[in-house]
């Protein structure tokens, strides 16, 4: 039914760098001569709201947005956001979760509780769930902001994107001064995924 198309949903909180990550994945797919479409979020939601970018690649891609139930992978920069979009996952699909929390307003104000066990609950529902301490690993590589590239490392290994192609795309799209940290974080990420 999916004609070999890969659907990757990248979810997080406005300002976390989901956009750059989706653009790197898309660039890798371009390098590999796939047809690619990416749907991005600009505007209001970027002010700390939930954000979703979508990358689709394959021989021929029509829609830039992924149908509910068709995502091969959900790459979540924040735990709650993985839960929010979980219905988009394909049966048998994979969820990669950064084990990090960013409290939304109802939690900050003490009105609601952050469901601390949310990552485990997802793991209970979806067998193929990988929980990664991406922020901590990024910090140890030199910058907590490189958490997105740690996740990218996990993802690229999980869906068999060639390491060299991804590194090439990172080199092209990450500012030179942040490159070393990003490459280190990416390699750490790749190490984390073992089948």
């Amino acid at each position, binding site marked *: 039914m999916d004609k070999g198309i890969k659907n990757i949903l990248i979810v997080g909180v406005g300002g976390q760098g989901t956009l750059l990550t989706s653009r790197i994945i898309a660039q890798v797919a371009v390098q590999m001569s796939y047809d690619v479409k990416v749907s991005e979020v600009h505007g209001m939601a970027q002010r700390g709201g939930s954000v979703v970018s979508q990358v689709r690649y394959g021989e021929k891609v029509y*829609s830039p947005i992924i*149908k509910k139930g068709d995502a091969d992978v959900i790459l979540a920069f924040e735990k709650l956001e993985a839960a929010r979009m979980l219905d*988009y996952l394909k049966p048998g699909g994979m969820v990669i979760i950064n084990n990090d929390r960013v*409290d939304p307003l109802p939690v900050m104000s003490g009105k609601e509780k952050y469901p601390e066990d949310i990552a485990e609950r997802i793991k209970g529902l979806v067998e193929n769930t990988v929980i990664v301490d991406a922020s901590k690993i990024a910090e140890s590589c030199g910058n907590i902001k490189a958490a997105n590239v740690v996740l990218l490392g996990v993802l690229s290994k999980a869906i068999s994107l060639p390491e060299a192609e991804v590194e090439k795309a990172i080199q092209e799209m990450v500012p030179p001064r942040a490159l070393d940290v990003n490459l280190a974080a990416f390699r750490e990420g790749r190490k984390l995924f073992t089948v």
Partner: protein
Amino acid sequence: MKRLMIGNEAIARGAFEAGATVAAAYPGTPSTEIVSNFAGFEGVYAEWAPNEKVALEVGVGSSIGGARTLVAMKHVGVNVAADPLYTFAYTGVNGGLVLISADDPGMHSSQNEQDNRGYGRFAKIPVIEPADSQEAKDFTRMAFDISERFDTPVMLRITTRLAHSQTLVEEGEVQKPELKEYKKNPAKYVMLPGFARGRHVEVEKRMLKLKEFAEETDLNRIEWGEKNLGIITSGVVYQYVKEVLPDASILKLGLSNPLPEKLIESFASEVDRLLVVEELEPVIEEQIRALGIKVEGKELLSIVGEYSPEMLAACLAGETAGQSFSLESQIPARPPLMCPGCPHRGVFHTVKKMKLVVTGDIGCYTLGALPPLQGMDSCICMGASIGTALGMEKARGEEFAKKVVAVIGDSTFVHSGITPLIDIVYNQGKSTVIILDNDTTAMTGHQDHPATGLTIRKEPTRKLDIEALVRAIGIKNVRVVDPLNLKELETALAEELARNEASVIIAKRPCVLLEREAAQKRYYVDNELCTGCKLCIKIGCTGIYYLDEDKKAVINPNTCVSCGLCPQVCKFDAIKVVEG
């Protein structure tokens, strides 16, 4: 080599390839990146205009002057520009003019979801709808030819999903720009009644020619599949149709105004069942029905909101897509928020504390309407806050006016807040207006405007002095305050509201996302003094949160930017500066 581009970048590229040399816009999601990208090309002129009407008027002048011209705005921007648009449709062009209308089905970042294809029919101009970035580039380029060939402005109508989706684009050669000869021609360009009557006749003739063109242009194409179902569609929705109903026959309309009636009739006659799939209004469907053709559309598909592949799958193929883990309903929502350190927060905290009636406006500060600040009573369109405040005063009297304040951003004030302020002076209103001057157009991604003193290319220019302007309008009581100095702000508001005259308070502090120096100090909450009263939490800042276990507030060092607002709110002096 093909390259990924968002639709907006592709449009800029298409205009550049077509030899356009002038572009004007006012920012607005999802249109903003069109002209900001165009400004990156060499040898062209691009500007941020103060508003969409001015942008289009600059475009009209440039077109009459002989240059190919690009004008871009979001859907509601076309409302602002509608006056010149309708009459420019009469005069027609010299250099081709393409107006981009970026619609926002689903209202990702807008106050309504009007369907601007309606403008095409109403103003009698061609409407072109691309379905991916390649088409966005190619159709933009073609739109310039159509504009000149038929002597008409052309609307290229896109939607958020086209504007902000990246798809592959093969770049084309850049046509050498050609400045057409300028000839004085009052019968064409001076729309006095006598001349305009003549032009209206030309408009009708043009529409007939465009109808013929619609039949033959390859902007419209049929993709034959099985003939039991024929679908007519346009724009990005075409992609969802291909995804969900890959076997159906499709008539894809790239030119959706005027419609190719004969093509539609022949397509309809070959399929058993005819269905129009179009987001928002049944613009195409109703015209087809008026031709006497049996057609389905909105009885199956929503007139509200954005379409998606799963929505089409559910409505047309009876599939329910997705697994239902239903976690979404069990977890806290994550609405957008003002940033930590945002100067607007001080204003909304204060108007809420003073229990004022706030006529609001559009910008990042509209987030002040949401919990926990909830400091806004109305928000209609850009510039509406000031006139609305005056109207409230005239309806309910001057005593009521002492509780009413209009709140408007700097970019919005320049866009359309100046004339209503003149109305307050002219008609002797007593209202108080707060101009939130954060030195940028923050909401749409930090574009410059006349009061920032920088052009679209960040070149210095004469800076509009808002304070001097407000005084020149005739406002006698003008004060400039720091919105993060709560005492100063509250005092100013109390004094100005009490006055029997109109006042303007300029709350001046740059947007916290603009380049700033690293904070000099750090704050922490002294647990001995914190009573857990949550006053500091009610300012709705991600820099401070409430820890239920301890019943205390805690500063989040990763997000706090040390703006110093929460210490002013705390009644127990529990928020202190870290020493050393």
